[in-house]
Structures are given as structure tokens and as C-alpha cells.
């Protein structure tokens, strides 16, 4: 079932949680709402579920207006950040709840319910824990019970609010891969909220980046990561180096570097910020090019797949972060305190008047 959000506004007191948010989730997709806390992503999720009512705008399920439809008629599955398992019920009863509260004419028989619950327990790999109580489970197990409970009523839409937020790093990674596999198996339209960019990049088909109640960018993980639409997305998705300079009539000058910017052809002498990912900083021991920036290595973090360098510019004193592959790092035999030449590639420049951060 597809979900459409049409110009939704939501205010809490004087705080705008959502402003004119429109979004389209095609059927069967797994979409991540990504943003810092307070960006409105959870509010949007709760509005889709019907747990919050938008001030205006519309929620449309499968082409049908559903804004006024009651939560219990929306046929959504909702997984809460802190699981919200029924603490006095066993795992079995938790999962069976949605089936047991159905009106008598729709309610499956006891044996059907039992069969369905066991099928779900198998799906979430908790077959042996049916009689346990939530307090006797680990965080990861609880979250899987919550997911099984949500899936028991065969929802048309699965909504997950920071589903892995309260788990430790290892379980998180495991569980989000599992969620991805599960989605590939059952193909239910899913929306999940996260503030963890890695999680969004790894799991989602599409990412919706939110900030201050607005959607700032939408796209596949590659699009969002490689071509951030604005400085906010640049800052939010991964580490980034900032370079300050000016734009004048379609040309940006960032120190000694100049870049053609046809889209700013009309802009006359405006301040600008350039963004460069740490892995796009090339390091050399000798000057190859007048654009290169002379810098000292302040700190080296050599453990892991990439070596991270913290460089101090000799001209401005500013800090540049650079990432080198292990091979390149060994080849250069870098030490703390060495003088190197850094060359930024793939710089994206924005006029700063457009965006305040």
C-alpha cells in the first residue's frame, strides 16, 4: 500500500513540528526518515499511524484519504522505540494480542492464532521463548517480539520509530541487516525513523532527510550521500571539511582554489562555503600543484580500514580531516608532525546567504 503525505502541518503549542511536509512512499518500499532530534521525523511517523492528528494537510493511503480514519482502522503496524511490550503478558500473548482483540466475527480460532504466533516466532527467531515475559528478554529480543506483534495483524504499512535506538552497537548492526532481509521477504511498505545516518544508508531503499520540520532532501542512499542538496545534509551525513571563500559571477574562489559555478552566474561577490569529504582530500609529500594546501599532521588514527589524519593548515591554522586508504597511508609513511600537501577534490560550494547553519 502506498502512502502519500500532502502538505501536512503540525504545531505543538508554539513549536512547529512539521511545516508543509509532502511525501510519497511507493508501495513495498523501505523508507528511512533521517534527521536530528526535533526535526519532526517521529511526529511525521505518528501522523502516518494516526497517533497524532495533523493541523492541516492530508494522509492518503493507497489513493484513499485516511486523515480522519481512526488509528485502529488504519491497519498499520507500529514498532515503538522502547518496544512498548505488554509487560504482564508472555511473549506469546503479546504477539497474539492483535488477533485476540479482533471483533468476534473476524477473530481467528484459538488454534489458528496459535499457529500464526508460532509462525511469527519462527520468523523472528524466538521459537523457544514463547512463555517468557518481556522483562526476561534482552533488548534485541524485545525488539523482535515487538516486530512480530506488529506483523501479527498483517498490517498494510509497517512503521518503526527508532527501532534500534536503544540497542548496543553490535546488536544494532545485526538487527538492521535482519530487518532488511525481512523486508525483502515480506515486502510490506515500511517507514522507519532514525537519527543514525549509517543505519539509513545501509537499510533503506530511499532516504528522506528532515530538519526543523521540513523535508530537506529525498533520494536513494547514493544520491543523498554523494550529492547532498544543501549544507545541512552535508553536515548531517558523514564528516565533512569546510572551506570558506567567495563566489563572484559564476566563479568560486576558496583560497587558492577556484571552481566554476555556472548556477551562481548571477551572484555578485557573495560569501560561500565549500564542502569536501575527508576521503576526497588527497595527500602528497611534495607540491604538485599551486592549489595544494600546506599543512602539518597533528594527529593520526591508523587503526581500521582507513587511516584518519588531522591536518593543521599552515596558512590559516584551520583543521582539515583527511582519510587515506591503508595502502596509501603505508606508502607515504606518514608520522605525526610531518609536513604534507593536501588537495581537495570534488568540492561542493554553496553561497552562504541561502542557508544558515
Amino acid at each position: 500500500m502506498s502512502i502519500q503525505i500532502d502538505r501536512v502541518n503540525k504545531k505543538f503549542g508554539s513549536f512547529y513540528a512539521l511545516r508543509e511536509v509532502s511525501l510519497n512512499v511507493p508501495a513495498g518500499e523501505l523508507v528511512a526518515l533521517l534527521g536530528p532530534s526535533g526535526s519532526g521525523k517521529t511526529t511525521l511517523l505518528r501522523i502516518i499511524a494516526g497517533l497524532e492528528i495533523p493541523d492541516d494537510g492530508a494522509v492518503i493511503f493507497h489513493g484513499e484519504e485516511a486523515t480522519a480514519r481512526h488509528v485502529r482502522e488504519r491497519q498499520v503496524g507500529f514498532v515503538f522505540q522502547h518496544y512498548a511490550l505488554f509487560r504482564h503478558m508472555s511473549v506469546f500473548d503479546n504477539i497474539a494480542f492483535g488477533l485476540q482483540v479482533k471483533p468476534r466475527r473476524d477473530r481467528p480460532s484459538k488454534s489458528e492464532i496459535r499457529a500464526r504466533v508460532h509462525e511469527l516466532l519462527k520468523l523472528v527467531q524466538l521459537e523457544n521463548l514463547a512463555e517468557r515475559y518481556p522483562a526476561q528478554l534482552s533488548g534485541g529480543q524485545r525488539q523482535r517480539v515487538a516486530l512480530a506483534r506488529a506483523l501479527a495483524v498483517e498490517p498494510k504499512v509497517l512503521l518503526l520509530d527508532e527501532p534500534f535506538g536503544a540497542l548496543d552497537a553490535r546488536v544494532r548492526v545485526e538487527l538492521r541487516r535482519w530487518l532488511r532481509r525481512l523486508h525483502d521477504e515480506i515486502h510490506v511498505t515500511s517507514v522507519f525513523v532514525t537519527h543514525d545516518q549509517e543505519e539509513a544508508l545501509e537499510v533503506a531503499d530511499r532516504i528522506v532527510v528532515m530538519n526543523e520540520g521540513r523535508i530537506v532532501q529525498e533520494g536513494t542512499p547514493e544520491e543523498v550521500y554523494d550529492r547532498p542538496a544543501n549544507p545541512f545534509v552535508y553536515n548531517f551525513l558523514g564528516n565533512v571539511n569546510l572551506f570558506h571563500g567567495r563566489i563572484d559571477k559564476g566563479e568560486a574562489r576558496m583560497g587558492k582554489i577556484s571552481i566554476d559555478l555556472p548556477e551562481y552566474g548571477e551572484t555578485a561577490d557573495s560569501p560561500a562555503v565549500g564542502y569536501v569529504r575527508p576521503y576526497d582530500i588527497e595527500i602528497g609529500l611534495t607540491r604538485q600543484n599551486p592549489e595544494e594546501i600546506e599543512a602539518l599532521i597533528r594527529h593520526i588514527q591508523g587503526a581500521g580500514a582507513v587511516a584518519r589524519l588531522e591536518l593543521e593548515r599552515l596558512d590559516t591554522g584551520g583543521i582539515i580531516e583527511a582519510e587515506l586508504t591503508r595502502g596509501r597511508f603505508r606508502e607515504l609513511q606518514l608520522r605525526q608532525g610531518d609536513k604534507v600537501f593536501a588537495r581537495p577534490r570534488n568540492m561542493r560550494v554553496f553561497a552562504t546567504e541561502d542557508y544558515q547553519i
Partner: protein
Amino acid sequence: MKSWETTGGGKKKSPPKGLTEPAAVRWALTCTVLLFLGFFLLLPLAAVFSQAMEKGMAAYLAAVREPEAVAAIRLTLVTAAISVPLNLFFGVAAAWAIAKFDFPGKSLLLTLIDLPFSVSPVISGLIFVLLFGLQGWLGPWLASRDIQILFAVPGIVLATIFVTFPFVARELIPLMQSQGKEEEEAAIVLGAGGFATFFRVTLPNIKWGLLYGVILCNARAMGEFGAVSVVSGHIRGATNTIPLHVEILYNEYNYAAAFAVASLLALLALVTLAVKSFAEWRGRTG
């Protein structure tokens, strides 16, 4: 939670030195508390029972079986039987509204719930005299229709409900607030209606706190003196509850009988304490 969960349990360890007081200080403090408890709680309790039995078991039973005493006991039970269920209902409704929803006037409602605690019981009684007395607002209207509220059972029940109103709500509000409303939201998303949500999710989560509140409410309903004294009219065999009956016997220098009837209330207090500890213990562990 079952017993194999050892959160907070395990072997008791004495705290490291420097975090505890010298033995002499600890002993002195413990003894002071025990002496205080003994003097102010245990001694009076023992006195009640010993005075009650002063003239032997036969006199004790006679005092308790005497028709006026029986009438007082019956009235007390009837009053509690009406006011406790009503307060159970109002208390749960008020706590539910306050803990799970935001609405204008919420803090005013909270203050109003506390009102019976902050007002002297005598004033609580007088409120009803002002309302229903012959000189009161509704008195003439009621009198013209021959409806008796003051100096009759309805007045006693009303005063008791008023005085015992906060117990259940006060017990439940913090509990329900700490539990949040996520479980209810989960139930509704899964398709449960209001009744199913309340009886299958909310109620099981608050049952021990609720029992605790009901026990305290009941103890107060049976033991209330001040407010009931104002509205009762002290008609023997008709509008006397146990506490009022005890007072009358005492004022008539009938000490043995007074203490015998009082011992019933004291017994109720002991049973209440036992059930309350049980409820607390279950509330913590289950």
C-alpha cells in the same frame, strides 16, 4: 518478574567503611526509633486490646453483640461498601485522565483531588451541613420533598466519599505517569478498542497499586470520625458508625465496651497493614 531475576537482590553486603556510622551511633539511632515506635504505636495498640479484655471474654462479646454496636458495625460496613467502589471508579477515571491525557485545567483537577486531604475533616462535614442543612442551600428544597440527607445514612456516605476521595487517585497518578502511554498506544494500533485496552493492558499494569489505594481508602472510610461526626447526628442504633459509637461509650465511662468496639477498628487496621504489605510486595515483584 520471577524470582530468578536478581535485579537489586543478591547477597547483602555491608557498605564499605567510611560510608557508614560507628556501631554505637547506629545502635543509638535504632534504639531510639524502636523506643519511639513501641511507646507511640505498640503500647497503645496493646492497651486497646488489654482494656477490651479487662472484664473477660464474655463482657467483650456482649459489648460487641449489643444491638447498638451491631447497628454501628452494619452502618460502617454499608458506608464503606458504597463509598469505596465509587471512589475506586472516580479515582481510576481521574488518574487515567490526568496521567494519559493533556487537557486544559489539568493542574486545577490535581489540586481539587488533594482538597479533601488539605481540609480538616470537620470542615468537610460542615460543607455538607451548609449544603443540605435546613438553613443550607438545598435544605428547604429537600425538606419540602421529604428527602433526608443530613443526620441520616446518605449524609454519612457523602461525607465519607468526600474525605476518602484522594486515596485511589493519588496512588495511581504517579504509577500511571511513570508507565507512560506507549503500551496503550500499542494496543490501539493493534486494533483494540477502549474497553479492551483498559481491561487487558492498563488495569493489569496498575492492579497492585490500585489494590493498595483501595485498602487505604477502605481503612479511612471505616475509621473516619470528624466529617461523619458533624453530619451524623449521633442517633443511637441509626446513624452511629463504629468510631462514633466508641466515642459515646467512652463518654459514658463504659470503658470496657468502648475498648471492645475500638478493638474491632484496631483489628481492621492490622489486617489492612498486612494486606497493604502484601500488595506492596506483589507490586514490586510482579
